[in-house]
Every structure is written in C-alpha cells, then in structure tokens.
C-alpha cells in the first residue's frame, strides 16, 4: 500500500462526520461509508438466515458501560441454562472480564476484543458462527460493547435487540439516545432497587422509549435483586 493510500484509509477511519472530509476525498468517504453499511446489512441477513435455519433464538444486548448488561445476562443464564444450550458472545474494547463472569455461570462464552472499534459488527459475529457447529446451540446471546451510540450503526442479525439503561444514568438517557431505542424490541430500565434513593423520573423514561418506538416493550428490572428477570424472560420468549 502506498503512503498516500494509507493516509487516505487513516483519514476515512477518523472521520465520524462526512462534513469533516476535505472536498477532494468527500466522495470516497461517502462511498466507503455507504459500502460498509450495505455490507454489514448483507452479512447480518445471512447470519439471521443461518440462525433461523438452525432454530436458534438470538439476542443482541446493548447498553452503556455499567448499565447492568452482564449481570442481567448472568441472571438469565442461571435461570435457563438447564433448559437451553447457550452460546454467549461478549464484545469489549479489551479484557475478557465479562466473558469470565458469564463462563462462571456455566455457559460457553467467546470474547471479542474490538480494539479501536466501539461496537460489534456483523462480520465479527459471522466469523464466529461460521466456525461453530450451530446444531449445538438453542440460544445465542450477544453482549455488545458498552455504549449507546455506535451499536446503532451495525445490526448483527439477531431476532431481538434489547437495550439496557439504568436509572443511575439519569432520566434523560433515553431522550438523548433515540437511535438505539428506535431499533430495539425491548427497553430494560435497570437498577430500580435504587429508585427510592435517586428519585429518577421513570415515567419520563418509559414515555421517551415509547415515543421513539411505539412497538417497544419496556420493563423495569433489578439485576441485583432479581426483580422482574422472569418477566424479561417472558418478553424474550425464553420462559
């Protein structure tokens, strides 16, 4: 690769906004971004077909760092691991902390360290499932990288997307992140065991979620106490 090509790739990667592209590379940036979105969607559809063919229920769980995704998953696995053969894919920038926690609940877990990428994409998932014998599994959970922004760029081909927020993030967290809620099937509002102490306006959070997505199902949980995890399982058709 020439030095100029490398600089171009580097520049395209850095550009979050097409508006920041210099005129002479603007076209290339637009084409590249469109191309990436198209490829991801194509792969996600392929993944979904594959999972359906093998009768695997699949879930993409997104949410900010510390919202409670991993603990919710731990609780879910505790409850259903005797009924289903489960594979969990964890996404994090680095470390395998979450994978280790989930493994301790008895589920097969694969960690993806995304390095400088802020979300999992369909290619990551495709690389895993094409190397697996899918007949060995009934359910696949994907715990996405912790943030409420980047995952909205990449669908992963799962049956459902579940977005987890916690009341500790403040009542405006859903209003500030509409994209993800528009694309989600379930909104989980977690850590309600702290409601009395924090006084967060839960009604506003529920209203915001439903305003962005009238079809979204909203549930209040406490992964710590286990409250409503059974109800969440029902919404996921895993009861």
């Amino acid at each position, binding site marked *: 690769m020439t030095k100029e090509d490398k600089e171009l790739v580097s520049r395209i990667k850095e550009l979050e906004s097409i508006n920041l592209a210099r005129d002479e590379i603007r076209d290339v940036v637009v084409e590249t971004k469109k191309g990436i979105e198209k490829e991801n969607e194509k792969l996600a559809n392929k993944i979904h077909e594959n999972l359906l063919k093998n009768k695997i229920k699949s879930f993409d769980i997104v949410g900010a760092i510390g919202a409670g995704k991993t603990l919710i998953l731990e609780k879910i696995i505790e409850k259903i691991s005797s009924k289903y053969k489960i594979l969990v894919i964890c996404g994090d920038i680095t470390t395998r902390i979450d994978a280790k926690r989930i493994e301790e609940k008895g589920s097969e877990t694969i*960690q993806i360290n995304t390095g*400088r990428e802020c979300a999992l994409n369909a290619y990551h998932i495709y690389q895993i499932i094409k190397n697996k014998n899918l007949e060995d599994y009934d359910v696949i959970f994907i715990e996405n990288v912790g943030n409420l922004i980047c995952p909205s760029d990449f669908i992963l081909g799962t049956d459902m997307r579940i977005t987890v927020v916690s009341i500790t993030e403040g009542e405006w967290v859903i209003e500030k992140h509409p994209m993800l809620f528009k694309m989600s099937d379930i909104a989980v509002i977690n850590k309600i065991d702290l409601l009395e102490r924090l006084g967060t306006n839960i009604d506003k959070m529920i209203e915001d979620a439903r305003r962005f997505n009238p079809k979204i199902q909203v549930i209040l949980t406490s992964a710590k106490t286990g409250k409503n995890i059974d109800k969440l399982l029902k919404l996921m058709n895993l009861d």
Partner: protein
Amino acid sequence: MIDKLNELEKNLSNLDEISLKKVPELLKSLLKDLAHDVDNYIGDFPTFIEPVHLEGPVKIGDDVLLGPNVYIGKNVEIGDYNEISNSVIFDNVRLGENMKIEDCIILKDSVIDLSDSFLKRVILSGNNKKSPETFKRIAF
C-alpha cells in the same frame, strides 16, 4: 498444545515429500485446543476474536483482526490491515500488509509480503520478495 505444534512442524519439515493428507486434521486438532492468551504483543489495540494464542512477543500493526483460532509463535511481525483466522504462524515470521489469511500455515522464518491477497488453505514458506527461489506456496 506444544505436542501438537511439534507434530505439525515435524510433518511439514520436508516440504517436497509432504504428507498433505494429514495437515487439515493436525491443524484442526491443534486449533481446537488453543488457549486464549493475547498478553504478549506490541501494537495499537488490534481486534481479537478468541481463541487467539500469542506466544510472543508479537508486533502487530494497525487495523489488524486476529481470530478466531489463531496461533502465533515468537518474534512475529504482522503488518497493517491483515486479517488472520484458523491459522498457525510459526516463529520469526514477518508478514507484510493487507492480506486475508484463512486456514493457513506459515512456516518459521518466512517473510510473506503479498499485499491485497486472499490466502486460503495454503502452506507458505520462504521469502517471496527478496528470495523468490525460496518461496513455496502449497495448497492442501
């Protein structure tokens, strides 16, 4: 894992009379037992899909994706924009940039620089740029 690595290397030691039939099974068996260990590298946060085993130290370039099922030996250098899966890279290998390497074995001390290539189910050895007469590419 070390036994299986040694067995694979021994099986590949004489490339001219190579028993290619054994290679897929040996490779699969080795990669199945891989313990994920990515502590020993120098680089700017590559992407890892486990299991990846870096015997290390491994120098990893930018925008590299390793895994799943990758073993990398000691003193290996991996150039920018490479993607490696289901493969074994033995000690002292230097990889150029922008290669997609899948189901491959790269023998020790090799220097492979095949930019913009998709390498699948091949055994590579030698130095394709500086000493092309040493370079071997054997499909299996």
